[in-house]
C-alpha cells in the first residue's frame, strides 16, 4: 500500500504538466466557466437563449473529459519523452500497482471540473437543482469520471510504442464531444453510429445523469449506468494488457526511444 501511495504521488507530481497554480486553477475551475459563457452567448446569438440550460449536464460531463484524458495520457507521454519510463521498466515495481497509480489523482480533477461547470451554470444561467435525485446523480458523475479515467489509461499506454502520441487524446475528446450526446442527442445518428457511440465513455452514463437530475430514481437508469461502468472496466483491463504488451515489445526490440510498430 505504501508503494502504491508513493507511486500515486510521484507519477502525479512528476508527470502532470498542468500542476502549477495558474494552469491548474485556470484549467479545472475557469475553463468550465468560460465554456458556459461561450454556450450561453452562442445560444442567445443563435436564437435559443435557454438552450445552455439543457446542455449544462453535457458540458459538465465534457469538462471531465478535457481534464482527465490529457492528464492521464501525459503521465505516459512525459514519462517516455523525459526518459524516466526506462527506469520504471528496469525496476521490479509491481506493474498493476504502477499502472493504476498513474490515474488516481486525475479522477478528482474531473469531478472538480464537473462541479465547477454546474456551479457556473447555476450562477450564470439559473440551472435548476430543485428536483435532483442527489444520490443517483452523484453515483452517475462518479461512474462517468471512472470510465473517462479508464479510457485515459488505455490511450496513455500507446505512448510507450508510438511517438507524438500526445494528440490522440485530442481526437478522443472530440469524439466524445460530438458522439456521446453531450450536446447533440444520440437519436439523430444512424443506429450503427449510435452503437459505436455507446462504446465511448460518457454516452451511457449521461443518460443516467440526465434522468437523475430531473428526479428519476436511480433504479430507472441502472442499465445505462452499469454499461458505463462496464465500458470503463473494459478500457481499464485492455489498457493494462497494452501496458504489459508494449513494455515487452519495446524491450525486445530496443525501441523505447523510437517507434516500436
Amino acid at each position, binding site marked *: 500500500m505504501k508503494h502504491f501511495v508513493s507511486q500515486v504521488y510521484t507519477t502525479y507530481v512528476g508527470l502532470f*504538466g*498542468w500542476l*502549477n497554480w*495558474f*494552469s*491548474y486553477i*485556470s*484549467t479545472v475551475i*475557469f*475553463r468550465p466557466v*468560460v*465554456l458556459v*459563457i*461561450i*454556450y450561453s*452567448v*452562442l*445560444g*442567445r*446569438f*443563435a*436564437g*435559443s437563449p435557454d*438552450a445552455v440550460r439543457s*446542455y449544462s449536464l453535457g458540458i459538465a460531463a465534457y469538462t471531465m473529459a478535457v481534464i482527465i484524458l490529457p492528464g492521464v495520457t501525459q503521465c505516459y507521454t512525459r514519462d517516455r519523452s523525459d526518459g524516466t519510463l526506462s527506469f520504471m521498466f528496469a525496476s521490479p515495481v509491481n506493474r498493476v500497482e504502477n499502472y493504476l497509480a498513474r490515474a488516481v489523482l486525475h479522477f478528482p480533477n474531473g469531478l472538480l471540473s464537473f462541479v465547477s461547470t454546474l456551479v457556473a451554470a447555476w450562477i450564470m444561467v439559473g440551472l435548476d437543482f430543485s428536483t435532483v435525485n442527489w444520490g443517483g446523480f452523484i453515483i452517475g458523475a462518479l461512474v462517468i469520471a471512472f470510465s473517462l479515467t479508464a479510457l485515459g489509461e488505455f490511450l496513455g499506454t500507446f505512448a510507450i510504442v508510438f511517438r*507524438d502520441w*500526445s*494528440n*490522440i487524446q*485530442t*481526437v478522443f*475528446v*472530440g*469524439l466524445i*464531444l*460530438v458522439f456521446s450526446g453531450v*450536446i*447533440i442527442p444520440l437519436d439523430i445518428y444512424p443506429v450503427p453510429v449510435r452503437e459505436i457511440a455507446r462504446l465511448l465513455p460518457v454516452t451511457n452514463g449521461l443518460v443516467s445523469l440526465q434522468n437523475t437530475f430531473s428526479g428519476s430514481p436511480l433504479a430507472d437508469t441502472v442499465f445505462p449506468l452499469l454499461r458505463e461502468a462496464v465500458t470503463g472496466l473494459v478500457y481499464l483491463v485492455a489498457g493494462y494488457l497494452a501496458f504489459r504488451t508494449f513494455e515487452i515489445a519495446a524491450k525486445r526490440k530496443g525501441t523505447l526511444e523510437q517507434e516500436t510498430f
Partner: protein
Amino acid sequence: MVYQLRALLASVVQQWKQFSTYFGNLGFFLATIPMAIIYTWIAMQKGDRQVLAYLSVGLPLMTVWSGVAFRIGYTLSSELSSQVLQFVYISRTPVIVVSLGKALAQVLWGLPMGIISFFVIFLMTRTLPEVSQPLALIVSLLLVIVGITVASLFFSPLMVLVGGRGGFFNTVIPFGLVLSGFVFPVDKLPVVLMVPARLMPTSWAMDGIRLSLTTGSTWADIFASWSLCLLSSVFLGVVTYAMFRIVEKRIRVTGTRDLY
C-alpha cells in the same frame, strides 16, 4: 528593410520545414473541428440563415486561431528552454521579425484546417453563406488573418515574461474565442467582456465580415470596422514589441534570462 524581409521569409521557410517533418501538432487545429460541429448544430436548431452564414466563416477562422495561438505562444519560450534564444539575440535581425515570420508560417499551416472546418460546416448546413459584398468579405478575411497573426504573436513574449508553463493556454484559448468574435459578434457579450474584446483586432475584422454578409450594410460601416481593426492591430503590435524589448533586456542587460 530588404534584409529584414529576407529574414522574415527565411523564418517562414524554417518554420514550415520544421512542421513538415512532424506535422506541427495538427491536434491543436483538429481539436476545434468537433467544437465547430457542435456550435453549428446549436445554431441549426433555429436555422437563422444570418447566424449560420456568420458561423460558416467564423468557425473555420476559430480553427486557425486556436492552433496558431498555441503554437506561436510557445515559440520564444521553447527557444529559451532549448538554449537557442541567445543566438537569435546575438544576430542582428530583430527577434520580432523572426517571430513574425514564424507566426506567418503557422497561419499558413493552419489555413487548410480552416478549409476542412468550412467543408464540415457546409456538409452539415448544405448552404453556402450568402455574401452581399464579396470584395468587403475578402478584405475582411485578410484583416482577420492579420489580426490572428498579431494577436498570436502577443503571447510569444508574454509566455516568457510570465513564465507560462504547460497548460497555460487551456483557458487562454477558450477565453480568446469569447473575445475574438469568431463564434458570435462581440456586441452580444456583457459589457465587462465587450471592452477587452474590442482590443482584439479580430473582433473588428469579424464585424467587417458580418457587415459584408448582411444586405444593406454601408461601406462607411465596413471601412470603420477595418480602420478599427488596423488600429487595434497597431496597438497590440506596439504592446507586443514592448514585451519583446523587455525579454531582450532581460537577456542582454540584466542577465535574468532564467528568472521570471
